[in-house]
């Protein structure tokens, strides 16, 4: 009896732990703080383990964990950060018919991450879920509990903002001005 739930724990660890790196990186990018990401990920796994009985084997464990991650992040954001939430007016579908700003040729990981950090959190979350974690629109909508249309508009806006911020980062080094001038 003492060990009655041990096999379940092992089952949980086998299903959930392979996704730990992805969850940690997502938490770190959204919080901008690796130490807090550590705490959040431990919390996510504890919450997931507690509700593992409700998880249906064979369904998408990774998406389920990400959904818990976003619930946990919302809790921590309220606790730690004063995060500006996206206003309804920002949800209007972007007009993406124009080409975005050019991307500097020589960008480092650090440049990319700096630019990403400047993208507002809700847009950043969708860009990370779709472009980095390669979740479908439908899965992303499920994880964030928003309509698919919101995912599409935030993705479009988020990608465009990232390009703009990236150009700003490059300009701060004096890179890309000529290139932008040519393309204008």
């Amino acid at each position, binding site marked *: 009896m003492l060990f009655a739930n041990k096999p379940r724990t092992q089952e949980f660890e086998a299903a959930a*732990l392979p996704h730990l790196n992805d969850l940690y990186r997502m938490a770190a990018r959204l919080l901008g703080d690796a130490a807090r990401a550590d705490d959040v990920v431990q919390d996510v796994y504890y919450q997931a383990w507690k509700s593992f009985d409700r998880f249906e084997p064979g369904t998408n464990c990774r998406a389920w964990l990400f959904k818990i991650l976003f619930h946990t992040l919302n809790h921590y954001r309220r606790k730690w950060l004063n995060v500006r939430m996206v206003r309804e007016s920002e949800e209007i579908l972007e007009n993406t018919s124009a080409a*975005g700003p050019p991307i500097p040729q020589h960008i480092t*990981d650090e440049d990319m991450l700096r630019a*990403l950090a400047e993208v507002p959190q809700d847009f950043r979350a969708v860009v990370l879920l779709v472009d*980095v974690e390669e979740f479908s629109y439908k899965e992303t909508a499920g994880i964030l509990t928003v309509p698919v249309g919101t995912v599409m508009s935030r993705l479009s806006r988020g*990608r465009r903002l990232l390009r703009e911020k990236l150009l700003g980062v490059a300009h701060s080094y004096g890179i890309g001005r000529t290139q932008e001038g040519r393309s204008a």
Partner: protein
Amino acid sequence: MTRTQFGEGACDKTRRYLDAYICNELLVETNHEVLRHLEACPACTAEVATRTRLRGRLKSAVQSLAVPPELPALVKERIRSRQSSAWRFLPSLPTVSPASQRWAMAAAAALVLSAGTWMTYPRPLAMPGVGDRPSQANYIQKISASVAGIFKSALSDHIHCAVFRKYPVNPPAIEEMEAKLGPEYQGLLPVVEPVIPPGYRIVLAHQCTYGGRQFIHLTMRKGSEVISLVVARKENGETLAGLTPAEDSHGVPVYRTSTDQYQIAGFESERYLAFVVSSQSGSKNLQLAAALAPNVRRLLS
């Protein structure tokens, strides 16, 4: 995600669908329309390439963040400690007082937990000794298990040949390294020399074999840090082309992946795969591969 016709203002219409197009989220019919337009429109094709490149760079930048090696153990500890605290609610034992039961339970839980911890926690992989070949093979297998097949052999050879090695105080003379590379590959030395990161120098250049595969291997070293350029002939139609490039270096796509401890960046020629493997940051490793890619590829072609 409705079916859309493209006619006048086709570029505008196409670009509204590019976000969904690069995510493969369009309906088949709409996807065909976009593809048809792209075949005839260099501007929209360039926009797709830019967006795809940005996506690839973003992914590799985010994945360059190293995950603390102790995190899996901390997560397991958290779960198991909560599990043990739940044991307090087990049915009471008839002959022992409730207080004693709690103490006994707590002591038993602590004992079981510590034993369980000792037995099951994934301790950081200990680095085997230089002469301990069986443990090295085991270490290499575990480390390389998380990377895609095409990167595995280069990572394995780097660890086998460059990490598990005692280096002499003075590296061999250039003539000796040229002789070990052979006439076909000795041209790599002058190609690598100008882009070696500050503080590093070439300490090894030879042909070696690991896991039944032959490699051309150059190692740069600074103190205890080593960087490998590992080149191998392609086998069984191997190619990196199906992956998303992290960088385009003067027309040569450069790809990357990583484990928690190692960074791997690779490119290819018609007949060869070439990889830079190190424990540097992901961006530095990629930069070096990108600096090497055009000239190394030219040489191998």
